[in-house]
């Protein structure tokens, strides 16, 4: 990846927006990687939680939006509970999802979900899934 860094990247509107709705400050993160280290699903993410926050710090809006990370995060709060700086990547991901759903529409097509799942899974999984993946 090659980044052309400009003044406008630093504190970009998008980043400010995400910071506002998540209540988190990207610059609090000192990139220790604890969150990525402990996140049960970072292996599956295009960029782990600490990297997403790093990308926020340097204002790489597109790279963040492109990544699957926000959709893979399960909201387990492990990142936050061990972060030495009390940054909640979980809240940042939630805000990124909210932003994406608002601007691009649904992430999951309900119709595409396996029938088995819809039939057997506990309601809470479906309700929660809808809240996280559908606008």
């Amino acid at each position, binding site marked *: 990846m090659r980044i052309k860094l400009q003044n406008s990247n630093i504190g970009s509107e998008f980043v400010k927006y995400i910071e506002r709705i998540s209540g988190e400050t990207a610059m609090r993160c000192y990139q*220790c*990687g604890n969150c*990525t*280290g402990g996140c049960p699903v970072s292996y599956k993410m295009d960029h782990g939680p*600490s*990297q997403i926050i790093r990308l926020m710090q340097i204002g790489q809006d597109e790279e963040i939006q492109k990544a699957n990370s926000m959709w893979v995060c399960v909201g387990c709060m492990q990142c936050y509970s061990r972060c*030495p700086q009390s940054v909640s990547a979980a809240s940042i991901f939630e805000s990124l999802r909210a932003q994406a759903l608002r601007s691009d529409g649904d992430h999951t097509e309900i119709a595409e979900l396996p029938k088995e799942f819809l039939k057997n899974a506990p309601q809470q999984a479906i309700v929660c899934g809808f809240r996280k993946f559908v606008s």
Partner: protein
Amino acid sequence: MPRIGVFVCQCGNNISSTVDTAKVAEEMSKLPGVVLTEDYKFMCSSPGQDMLKETVAKNKLDGIVVAACSPHMHEKTFRKAVEKAGLNPYKCEIANIREQCSWVHHDTTKKIGTAKSIDLTRMVLERLKRNKNLTKISIPVNKRALVIGGGIAGIQAAIDIADGGRDVILVEKEPSIGGNMAKLSETFPTMDCSQCIMTPKMVEAELHDRIQLYTYSEVEKLDGYIGNFSVTIRKKARFVNEDLCTGCGDCWNKCPFKADSEFEHGLTKRKLIYTPFPQSVPNIPVIDKERCPKILKDKCGLCEKVCQPEAIDYTQEDEIVVEEVGAIVVATGYNLMDEARFAPYGYGKLKDVINGLQFERLASSSGPTGGEIQRPSDGKVPESIVFIQCVGSRDESKGVSYCSKICCMYTAKHTMLYKHKVHDGQAYVFYMDIRSGGKRYEEFTRRAIEQEGAMYLRGRVSRVYEKNGKLMVQGADTLSGSQVVIEADMVVLATALVSRQGADSLAQKLGIGYDKHKFYSEYHPKLKPVETITGGIFLAGSCVGPMDIPESVSMGSAAASKVQALFSADMLDREPITSKVREETCNACWDCVTACPYVAISKKEIKNRKGEVIRMVANVNDGLCTGCGTCIAACRSKTIDLAGYTDEQVYAALNAF
């Protein structure tokens, strides 16, 4: 009419960016008694001081106000300067328009800062008008020193002072001096063996004619003041007569009971009568009174039977000793943070997760494994070790916010020690930054990586757990952006250095300051790094903050030289801020006598010409009075007043707001 000069300092931009100093000067010039004002760039610079001296002399000023930084910064500077110009130094007062004005009001329109500066300067000016000429008080200096803490910093300070020809009392709370350095195996960056350089120092301290050791002792109480302290020391009962014991070791060889060794951080056991380690100074054991059945319930008594010189004394009690000294060096060192706080790393639960000092003991040839690296659970030589840096340090949410400064270096050292002992072993290090600033330090850490093959991974570890007899270390390598899992045989945590347990209560006894982490506060972090706010008490070593051996030793020597400087004069000048009694109005109620915390007030007889006592009045001893002013508020007849802070001066300041 007084002739007062007001000097307003711009402090470069520090004051002038939020205070219109010219305006302050102008306002002051309108006040009665002010004959001239100056608005100047850097008052404390030498041209500034010269200007001050010249102006005072040329204009025959009889008082000046410098509106500048805090009096804690430069009051002395300016008082000295005006003294040279022939003015009594106590006719110089400082208005604090920097720390308490320009730096805390960021309004660049300067309205706020200027207005407040005008008020502050006027208040000081009114007070100054009522200042009297005062002369310093001379008091004798007792040229013996007390050093608290017998780690490397305290030992160094004690030896330096003693070499300078002064008597030193060294108080150490453990049964032996040596502190943390005595536990280390080899030391960075030179890798010399810690014991080889430490033991001779310990012995030197023990044998020095001018050093008196009080081990297994603690300071209970401090009275007095610079030059004239009186220290109450509690010598805890060892249950061994120090004069009779020869250190033969028969007792501890025979003692049938064991407990975890504090010195070995629980890696091995010691007896209930023990010296902390074989090279202990003094080589005299103590009995663990919490556990010894003889002390607890009068059973056993074996050591007494085997001790030929009959040194064992089960009835020994703590002894209280009072020593008079003129100066004190505090060198009480550090502790490692209690790892119990780091549950995700399993310390305390997983046996093979240890801390840095435990690793030092494993690597030390005098340690529990004779220097072979074996893991605590089963004695197996670990094929891979993961070192985790910054455990508890730089962790605002669960540990401390600061960097412990030495753990990057000792971790690099540990990887080398490991590699030297286990050639085909692999060391992994999780780090956030490698902080190896210092002479030959960066080269040292590079050597660990390039030549000794330690694998450095940039990231923090999230957790350590056990799986099939292996320790699974799960963290991140942020440079490659991946989650990393390592199967290790042992994990070493570089836990934060924290202040000594009880550091705060000692500080309170001594009357010195400490920060929120309970490290002791220097008088000034850059310019007075070994002084405290309390005259005659100095600091050395890691009780001030995390520090390695070279720094601790430098500080020990620096503190010693401060003590020597203090001892170089027979008399000491003290601030003349003391209470004065107006004898005519004293009605001998003695309220002041009971109020004075320093017992500085006594009852004095007033006699007539025939020598008969006609009445009694209060009398203040200048040597003891510290100028706290408590007596004044207690005196209902307004008979006592405090030079430098008289009622009149305070009211003048109040009136001027």
